[in-house]
């Protein structure tokens, strides 16, 4: 009797599961005429939520199809890896040029990608700042304060996170400036700083949450936009931003993934999507989300938001991304030499 019930029950469950499966498949949101996937790095979530809406409206006024843009976020290096492994990104908007170079090396993006759009294909920039707790109890003013004993520094892992690589290189650039390009001194300085790092998250957002929510550490090395955002979300009564005397100009680049857009037939709309980032509307959205706009007129409008910082670029001081990546972040590179957890 019970067995009979079970038998019928089992059949019923299987049928129900099948029916449910079919039902779910058909009830998935109706596909828009065109779907793009933007694979991006960690802190750009809010920026692209707003930008995608604006672009979809703009594209309609241009006589285009209804377009739906899907987003994927994570550490920049990890996201590049996913695209290399076949994540169908029409567009990549990553934290640094090297990660897009890595995709280009595998042939999914043309090697000349960075010359295809103005300003090194970086429609907005940012920089690296310090986020400290309200009142700056440890008195952190500059990079030297990070190397002091008893200061806990939070930064993500440079192996997986783009922001972390900018953090690291900003510190390196400062050290070279301070000790007149003495690399041994700079290495020692970075080693001191990383001795103060209790935990390396894989992405910038993970580190921000570690610092703000879990309350770990005295100072967070952070993208400027990420620092502004966490103050906006969590309140100016808890955190404040410190701009060091010298820091790096971070240029997060964007590119169309040629292999994917040609296969899916989405090149036109994908290119329009990136070009629109340079428009006044696109620049305005970037600025509102605390990215420094390239357009001088929009930048002037948001002048009081962004502190004037003394910035250096990776090309002028460190010989570009390829060189910096190889020297610092490859296996056995300087980062591996200085960062030995547990020591």
């Amino acid at each position, binding site marked *: 009797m*019970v067995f009979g019930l079970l038998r019928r029950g089992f059949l019923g469950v299987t049928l129900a599961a099948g029916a449910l499966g079919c039902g779910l498949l058909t009830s998935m949101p109706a596909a828009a005429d065109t779907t793009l996937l933007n694979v991006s790095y960690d802190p750009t979530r809010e920026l692209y939520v707003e930008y995608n809406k604006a672009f979809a409206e703009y594209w309609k006024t241009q006589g285009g199809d209804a377009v739906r843009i899907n987003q994927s976020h994570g550490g920049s290096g990890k996201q590049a890896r996913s695209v290399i492994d076949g994540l169908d990104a029409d567009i990549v908007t990553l934290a640094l040029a090297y990660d897009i170079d890595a995709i280009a090396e595998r042939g999914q993006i043309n090697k000349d990608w960075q010359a295809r759009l103005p300003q090194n294909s970086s429609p907005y920039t940012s920089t690296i700042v310090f986020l400290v707790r309200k009142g700056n109890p440890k008195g952190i003013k500059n990079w030297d304060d990070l190397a002091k004993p008893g200061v806990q520094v939070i930064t993500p892992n440079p192996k997986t996170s783009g922001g972390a690589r900018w953090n690291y290189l900003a510190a390196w650039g400062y050290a070279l400036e301070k000790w007149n390009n003495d690399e041994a001194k700079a290495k020692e300085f970075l080693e001191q700083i990383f001795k103060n790092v209790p935990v390396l998250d894989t992405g910038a957002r993970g580190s921000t*949450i570690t610092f703000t929510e879990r309350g770990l550490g005295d100072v967070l090395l952070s993208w400027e936009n990420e620092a502004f955002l966490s103050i906006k979300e969590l309140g100016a009564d808890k955190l404040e931003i410190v701009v060091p005397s010298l820091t790096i100009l971070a240029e997060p680049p964007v590119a169309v993934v040629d292999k994917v857009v040609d296969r899916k037939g989405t090149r036109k709309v994908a290119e329009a999507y990136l070009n629109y980032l340079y428009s006044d509307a696109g620049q305005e959205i970037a600025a509102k989300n605390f990215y420094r706009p390239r357009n001088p007129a929009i930048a002037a409008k948001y002048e009081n938001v962004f502190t004037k910082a003394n910035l250096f670029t990776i090309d002028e001081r460190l010989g570009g991304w390829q060189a910096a990546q190889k020297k610092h972040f490859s296996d056995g590179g300087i980062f591996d030499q200085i960062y030995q957890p547990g020591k």
Partner: protein
Amino acid sequence: MPAETIAPSGGRPALREPLWLRLSLIGGALTFLAVFLLLPLILVFVQALGHGVEAYWDALVEQDAVSAIQLTVLVAAIAVPLNLVFGVAASWCIAKFEFRGKSLLITLIDLPFSVSPVISGMVYVLLFGLNGWLGPWLIDHNIKIIFALPGLVLATVFVTFPFVARELIPLMQEQGTEEEEAAVVLGASGWQVFRRVTLPNIKWGLLYGVLLCNARAMGEFGAVSVVSGHIRGMTNTMPLHVEILYNEYNFVAAFAVASLLALLALVTLVVKSLLEWRYGDELAASARH
């Protein structure tokens, strides 16, 4: 013999520890359970309902949350029946027959328990990824496995594979093969033996295994995270969606979705207890055979 101890007839007293020790051990265990199991569970609901029922409901009916829930249910609806079939077949094979390589098979079934879920996800990327063994062929034929539904199902099936089999193997081994042998002697075919003798004996163990399997299938994070691609509204399952919401400072929504997962765990627990309460006799009887 002290009066308050329980003693097996004629043996030494089973309990002769002083009262204070027993009480402090029990108290310690209960405190531990309360702090590390009960409190976090309550906290999930407190956080989820922190901004009122309306905010909670809004978080659950939000489009990306709904698609995450649908996807999770769909993945489990495919993976669990598959594992039910695999699990029954494997344990039938192992418990009722003698063959060479049996211990190897048992080891293989246990493999997903000992392998980190991240590795389970990674092997599928290495196999089906664009640079994997089968990647180029798949892309030529426009078949998507990883960063799409099939990859999520594969990873889930792999991780939850042992649940049904591990539940059934000891049960079936204890039951032995006499009843099946009798059925064969009486002229039953293999299918008849399975359907009329074996299945009735294992049904509650099977249901239990399926429950556990389902709970894990819906809650799995690591393996699924590697093959998901994290596309919101498309390849985000509930656990992944919880992480994303949390990372976006959207704590109410994160805990609202998390509370669904917690509810799932509670329902699993209640159904399991109900089963044991209602069919306890039969479970025990089938175990005695």
